């Protein structure tokens, strides 16, 4: 008997009945892709996975009646009802702890943390439990949990609303961490996370929520976790980035007088070390861009990996272009903290000219 009395890979009833009709973004022609913003793509992804598998439930603060403070869950309550889209008390450890209980017993909870800066009360539940249930029980019990949170700065938010905590989770064995940068990946990675048999943290770049549109397929699809995407091919420099800084990196790459390869990591845990190594072996130079603080950030892991896998190809040190080792400043000052295109370009130039 499985711990949850259910086959964890069973998708539940495919006969979703009326819910399909009511699903918020499914009133478009299913055969067609549609231009969606990232926030719409998250919503579309949630609706698609909820239609596909009736075990998927969404819970968190203000996700139901209010549709989420960023509207990522807008319309889900109406489509799927109050047993699948649930407003909780204001208590992140309670939310994640309860979601672990749901996950262990056969549901596929997608818990929202309103801003990634408020995930810390749930840190213990994530690192001490979600990450370890499989190990502790030798695979007998599992925790297919998704925790979603908007991360990063750039929207002139108050304190604690602009955090980039991904490195904390990347360091914890047993967790997976993904960060979409485009609407298409926002839907696909979310689906990958929901279908993954292990706990996955999905950090959504909130300043990209409404920044661009992209054609997003209407049907459900999943991006495999652990696979980076090369966004721009190049031969002289490899840049590794993810989430909110992909855009400024692409601008910087265009701006620079060198043939730059831009790799969107997408999955930070597991990390696509093969793609990283192959790219640097080709170009001989590398940089990494993220907005989290530099010290012991994901950039450190990438630099360490590169020199392990490709030292003999390295013509220059891996340049780290990151948020600084300070709390994220408020107001306009955040624009100096988050690597903007010019700062990225100058960093890339150093890597090229070293």
């Amino acid at each position, binding site marked *: 008997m499985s711990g949850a009395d259910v086959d964890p890979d069973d998708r539940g009833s495919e006969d979703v009945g009326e819910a399909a009709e009511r699903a918020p973004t499914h009133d478009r022609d299913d055969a067609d892709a549609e231009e969606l913003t990232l926030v719409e793509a998250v919503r579309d992804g949630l609706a698609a996975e909820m239609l596909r598998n009736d075990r998927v439930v969404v819970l968190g603060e203000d996700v139901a009646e209010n549709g989420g403070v960023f509207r990522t869950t807008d319309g889900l309550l109406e489509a799927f009802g109050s047993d699948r889209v649930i407003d909780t008390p204001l208590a992140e450890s309670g939310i994640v702890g309860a979601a672990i209980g749901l996950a262990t017993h056969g549901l596929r909870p997608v818990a929202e943390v309103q801003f990634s800066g408020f995930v810390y009360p749930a840190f213990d539940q994530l690192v001490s439990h979600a990450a370890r249930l499989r190990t502790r029980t030798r695979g007998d019990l599992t925790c297919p949990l998704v925790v979603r949170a908007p991360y990063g700065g750039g929207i002139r938010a108050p304190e604690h609303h602009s955090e980039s905590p991904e490195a904390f989770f990347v360091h914890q064995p047993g967790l997976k961490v993904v960060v979409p940068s485009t609407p298409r990946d926002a839907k696909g990675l979310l689906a990958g996370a929901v279908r993954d048999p292990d706990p996955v943290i999905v950090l959504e770049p909130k300043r990209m929520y409404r920044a661009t549109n992209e054609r997003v397929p209407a049907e459900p699809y999943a991006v495999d976790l652990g696979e980076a995407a090369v966004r721009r091919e190049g031969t002289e420099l490899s840049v590794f980035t993810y989430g909110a800084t992909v855009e400024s990196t692409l601008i910087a790459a265009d701006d620079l007088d060198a043939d730059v390869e831009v790799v969107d990591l997408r999955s930070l845990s597991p990390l696509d070390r093969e793609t990283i190594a192959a790219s640097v072996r080709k170009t001989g130079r590398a940089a990494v861009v993220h907005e989290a603080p530099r010290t012991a950030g994901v950039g450190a892991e990438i630099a360490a990996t590169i020199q392990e896998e490709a030292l003999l190809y390295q013509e220059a040190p891996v340049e780290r272009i990151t948020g600084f*080792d300070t709390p994220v400043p*408020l107001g306009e000052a955040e624009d100096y903290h988050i690597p903007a295109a010019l700062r990225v370009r100058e960093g890339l130039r150093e890597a090229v000219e070293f």
Partner: protein
Amino acid sequence: MSTTRRTPDAADADHRYRYLDESGHLVEDPPAVTETTLLELYESLRFARAFDERAKSLQRQGRIATYAPMAGQAGAQVAAALAMDDEDWLYPTYRDNAAKFARGVDPADVLALLAGHEGDGDADARVMPEYIPIATQLPQAVGAAWTGLLRSGEPEYATLATLGDGATSEGDFHEGLNFAGVFDTPTVFLCQNNGWAISTPTERQTRSETLARKAAAYGVEGVRVDGMDPLATYVTVRRAVRKAKDDVAAVADEPADPEAVAAGPSGATRPTLVETVVRRFGAHTTSDDPSRYREEPDRSGDPLPRLETYLRGRGLLDDERVAAVGDRVETRLEAAVERAEARETDPTAAFEHVYAEPTPAVDDQRAELERLYEEYGDRVAGERH
């Protein structure tokens, strides 16, 4: 809602302690509050009202960022702040600007923070920076109050921490109140139960009948009061502050309002949880659209006209004085806006106070940014800047 000032059971959701009815008429003998305090209450409330309106308009114009309005709650905030002594410390949330102003915080500082200029809290006014991660202020306020006890064996000062109804669900609420009970710290927990945590109504936050009754779980006294009655709030918080620091037993036995005290085991401990029942007249913040989750709220019982009616009735206010207060409020507010808007963004300010002495990493990174800034100026901050 009952209009009796006697609340026989803090656990009874239908009762709350009050002096003034919704139209501003006394339902009880007037409490012993000095005329100076009454007028301070009034002027502070007027200022809070004016600030609230101005902040909302500045936000609409893009001159400040997200703002959390106080309308419906400023009476409780101002009354609580004025009930504190100078030596006491306030631990506020993001919604408690009226309390901060009443303690002497410069409104220009608050506006500057809202416009994105770092620098929160005011040690001179004994006001901590605003606490945004919900309920995290509570264990800290307990530790702060405990300091005096540990240092001298005496409660040297009280701390008053504000919190919302939603905050009662967080673990830190529990740990903070439990520490207060166990170490008997001079702490007042001022819960502003405005019925909502963003879109979540209090009934979905907890199944406890009242928030005041949660105090009993910690052997702490719990009191429930009409927070839109500034008199009742003032008297209740004043008593809690005195009890925290003075003769605990004497105040506990004080006849003024013995029955408001119900949830605690004996009332003879220093900490108190005061649940002020208020209404959030507006949106959660300027980013929020309450029409998505609630009907137009009942805006009756506004503390300001209520207090004004009472003070006019007592002969402490007339049209002329009311106008004079209005002039002072406007002048103060104008000056604050002007000073706040004179501030400029310093691209490297963030490096300054990470540690007392910057670490090598902080120094190097600062130099890195300075080099770029020297060469490119504001373009370092990107297009959107």
